[in-house]
């Protein structure tokens, strides 16, 4: 749900990072926060457990620049990946404009990736969205791990609609901004279609 504010001359879009627990969603936002110009970003808000697992959400507001005199402002959210936080995940998806799925490349986590992807599809459906129709990007994170699965195999198991795919190592920044740019671009293009 984009919010076009003529009074403040800005447009706000909501992007949600989804995926299995410990996949690196929060790490993506931390990296973006650390590398963005302080003037163009707000505080990173993390509602987390004592062990740094996301409890409700992370939130980072980020200005990407100006189009036609309008500030384009993205609200980045992560969901808690742990299975039992499903009620919270549903809430975060409300009003979403684009989704980044952060998959964990470690072989042992493939089942968790698939479960989380199914969960995303059904939670979106509950909110009246169709994953096949909304801006969507797949990030294969933790490419640096010893048990990382082959790229083609991961794609075979996780691709749902020819979405852009990015390999990432989120804690050192690889692929993080490429992923963000891709989803931001898709959301803006969508805006042109529906505007």
């Amino acid at each position, binding site marked *: 749900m*984009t919010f076009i504010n*003529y009074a403040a001359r800005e447009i*706000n879009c*909501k992007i949600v990072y989804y995926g299995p627990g410990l996949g690196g969603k929060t790490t993506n936002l931390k990296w973006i926060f650390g590398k963005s110009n302080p003037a163009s970003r707000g505080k990173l*808000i993390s509602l987390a457990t004592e062990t740094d697992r996301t409890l409700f959400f992370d939130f980072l507001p980020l200005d990407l620049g100006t189009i036609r005199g309008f500030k384009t402002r993205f609200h980045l959210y992560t969901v808690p990946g742990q299975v039992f936080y499903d009620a*919270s995940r549903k809430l975060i998806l409300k009003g979403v404009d684009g989704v980044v799925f952060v998959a964990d490349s470690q072989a042992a986590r493939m089942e968790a990736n698939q479960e989380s992807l199914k969960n995303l599809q059904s939670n979106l459906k509950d*909110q009246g969205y169709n994953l096949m129709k909304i801006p969507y990007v797949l990030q294969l994170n933790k490419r640096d791990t010893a048990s990382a699965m082959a790229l083609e195999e991961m794609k075979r198991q996780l691709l749902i609609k020819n979405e852009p795919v990015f390999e990432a190592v989120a804690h050192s920044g690889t692929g993080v901004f490429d992923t963000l740019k891709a989803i931001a671009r898709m959301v*803006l293009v969508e805006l042109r279609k529906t*505007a």
Partner: protein
Amino acid sequence: MPTSDIILLEEDFRVIRDLIQKLRNDANARVVCLVDRNGQQIACVGEAEALDTTALASLAAGNVAATDSLARLIGEKDFSTLYHEGEKDNLHLSIVGGKVILVVIFDERSSLGLVRLRVKKHAGELAAALEKMQQRSVQARSGKAGTSPFTDITDEDIDSLFGK
């Protein structure tokens, strides 16, 4: 899309801002903000300079969303207001027009009773103004009213954002 986009025009914004300013004065509140249920800030008035209102909006919406789910869990439709009491400052959250969250921050210069009373008094007018904003958003999307500045953005416009 299930939730409709919000389009806030300058004139609607002024009406809404004036209304919450009036509420702020009447209630002796420090800050009054309007936030949509998805966490977007619509308008804020008062001693808001030192306040991160973007974060406030997101957290208020998260708070309301979570308590709404709690309400449904125990068989209530929703909790129409939330109140958080601090040592100096207090936070009063309520839903106006079913869609928008009204956030009132107040200290010892006011009281919960007064805030409740004033919120009730102004809620109707505010709901009407928001309804108008809503209608305008619907019109704009069907291309009747002021069209979006984004209908004719080009690939170059988007590229320029990313410094390509």
